[in-house]
């Protein structure tokens, strides 16, 4: 003991706190086009350096470069841009609606729009997404009715979930969007089970699931990957590393020790690390993983490296725990700006059309919110009270029937 150092307890801290200059100096970012692209049917042991690279397609000159360039049609790029812009316009409007007391809660996906939108457009209509609360872009990309989203957020008489869920915990089966619950990571395993069921039935549908980087500490995350690996489930398991879990930086989830994509190594499945603010890179990585899944080669873990530019939710102020301008300093830029600049570089877009589209989308959102407000904001209008007692079971038991009568509905 005498010659030994005393033990010390290590608590990770982020490089910058409020008042400091944002510091991304420790971040190693491969250049666009630099990270290799294994063949889709390559064996997992040949790609064990992938979790430490980063799949990037768009370079600093807004050009698509390297082996991961998915060579997308301009039409797809336009659809992606539109859905991302719509997501942001919607977020901004509904965040304000919360500040005006029209709903109880809201969470923005600002800065992460490329992820849900690219993956939604890339996957098929019959595939199933097991979402988190920050991927409304999935629905935007599939033209889910904005009014239904507004009604859900207002818990009004038009709420498709009849007032049973917190705002933005949507369910949209027909759009390949599984029901969201507030317990983090609890649906990761559902995606694996759903994918296993598809394989069991000889179907061709695959599943995609999201967790945040903080949730990789949950047991459900590891159990789901174990099952996905063991049974070679046709599932794409995504970790959205947006650097912040409410006020806890990603180092608290283990990011200082390794990458989240590297969690795949212990399970013997491919782990890809992707520039999550690069629409083309997200598309390409998802396409690669989807092809593997459809070829019965099993699951892929994808770390989508991004930055949560807004607060966690309407209930926190990010300026209390990180530098106020950190989002603007994020080295991988803004996903919408980058896709816009790429389209402009291709000669397929310009500032004027961009501004016009922005105005049109703002008006579309305003119209949906006005329509939702006409039905009623939170507390001003409610779904039929009797519906509170429905769907507890497929057929109600006597407790539910009696209590409904007791309430007089």
């Amino acid at each position, binding site marked *: 003991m005498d010659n030994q150092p005393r033990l010390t307890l290590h608590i990770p801290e982020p490089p910058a706190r409020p008042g400091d200059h944002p510091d991304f100096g420790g971040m190693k970012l491969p250049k666009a086009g630099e990270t290799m692209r294994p063949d889709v049917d390559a064996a997992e042991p040949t790609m064990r350096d992938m979790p430490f690279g980063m799949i990037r397609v768009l370079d600093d000159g807004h050009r698509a470069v390297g082996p991961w360039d998915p060579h997308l049609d301009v039409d797809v790029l336009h659809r992606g841009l539109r859905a991302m812009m719509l997501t942001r316009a919607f977020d901004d409007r509904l965040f304000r609606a919360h500040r005006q007391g029209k709903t109880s809660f809201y969470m923005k996906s600002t800065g992460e729009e490329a992820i849900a939108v690219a993956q939604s457009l890339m996957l098929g209509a019959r595939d199933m997404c097991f979402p988190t609360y920050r991927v409304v872009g999935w629905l935007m990309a599939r033209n889910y009715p904005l009014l239904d989203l507004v009604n859900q957020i207002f818990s009004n008489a038009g709420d498709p*979930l009849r007032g049973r869920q917190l705002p933005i915990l949507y369910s949209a*089966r027909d759009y390949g969007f599984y029901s969201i619950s507030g317990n983090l990571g609890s649906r990761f*395993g559902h995606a694996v*089970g759903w994918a296993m*069921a*598809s394989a069991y039935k000889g179907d061709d549908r695959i599943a995609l699931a999201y967790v945040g980087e903080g949730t990789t500490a949950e047991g459900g995350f590891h*159990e789901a990957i*174990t099952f996905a690996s063991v049974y070679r489930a046709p599932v794409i398991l995504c970790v959205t590393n947006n650097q912040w879990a409410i006020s806890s930086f990603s180092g608290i989830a283990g990011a200082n020790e390794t990458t989240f994509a590297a969690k795949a190594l212990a399970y013997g499945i491919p782990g890809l690390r992707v520039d999550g603010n690069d629409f083309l890179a997200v598309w390409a990585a998802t396409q690669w993983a989807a092809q593997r899944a459809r070829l019965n080669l099993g699951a892929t873990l994808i770390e989508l490296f991004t930055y949560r530019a807004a607060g966690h939710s309407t209930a926190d102020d990010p300026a209390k725990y990180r530098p106020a301008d950190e989002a603007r300093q994020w080295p991988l830029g803004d996903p919408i700006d980058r896709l816009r600049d790429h389209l402009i570089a291709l000669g397929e877009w310009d500032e004027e059309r961009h501004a016009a589209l922005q105005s049109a989308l703002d008006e579309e959102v305003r119209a949906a919110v006005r329509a939702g407000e006409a039905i009623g904001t939170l507390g001003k209008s409610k779904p039929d009270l009797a519906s509170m007692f429905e769907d*507890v079971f497929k057929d109600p*038991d006597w407790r539910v029937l009696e209590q409904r009568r007791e309430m007089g509905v």
Partner: protein
Amino acid sequence: MPVMNMVQALNNALDEKLGADPDVLIFGEDVGYFGGVFRVTDGLQAKHGLTRCFDTPIAEGGIIATAIGMGAYGLRPVVEIQFADYILPAFDQLVSEAARLRYRSNGEFWAPLTVRTPYGGGIFGGQTHSQSPEAIFTHVVGLKTVVPSNPYDAKGLLIAAIEDDDPVIILEPKRIYNGPFDGHHDRPLKTWAGHPMAEVPEGLYRVPLGKAAVVREGRDVTVLAYGTMVHVALAGIEEAGVDAELLDLRSLVPLDIDAIVASVRKTGRCVVLHEASRFGGFGGELLALVQERCFDHLKAPIDRVAGWDTPYPHAFEWDYFPGPARLMAALRRVMEY
């Protein structure tokens, strides 16, 4: 008609459902090649194939989560949790996900899974292999909980559970899995399980969820029991010499409230018997329901006999759970009130 014990009857139910419905599949720890530590899935993999009955990693939360996802896809998964005591790592999946999926998605998704799990004491299993956790399930809105007490019901309830569109937990009383159990601390060695082996029909039949069985008709007092305790109750009633009516609840959720109320209104007295510890147990709910609905008919306070409020003790196992002597004392109390 074949005569089977409960393990054989459960195995037969699974065999029949695997044969009849390609959307049914079975998985859990050691259930595949080996056929389960209690042998309930014996031979099913060999007969129906690897993908119909297979082993899982040791991850109860993962087992239930996977089953929920499969159910959401459209299958009818039947999973085994090796001991009910091991279900706690899966509790969040049962409570926050399986039980609420239909409700929170407004009926877009649901989880028609069946969770089979051996429960209860009497086999020297110690704290982590002996508990009776039914109350923690019955309190969860959206879960169904059933407990068979004989081979016929075990098969019929399991088939009904698999065909049910809601999540159902079957607590299988392992003390009477293989036939009669013998002896008790407060009695000489004796066979109590009245029907350890029973005639079990071939083919698919259902014991509906939510229907109690009148095991014994009587006029003086109603005894409410389920699982192993049905047999303890029979012994206690016979030895006490009272004209008791014994209801085997079979299904705790949904509960056959009409049968309970009809019986207690007839007898005017009620004793509840369960193996789980008393405080906060399911017996408390039964007492409250009887009090709410039968107060004007009661000739004596409702009584309950249950396990003690201690962790399940290995050496004192047979002192822990109720036997006929404790039920007899309760029956005398309510009769002499």
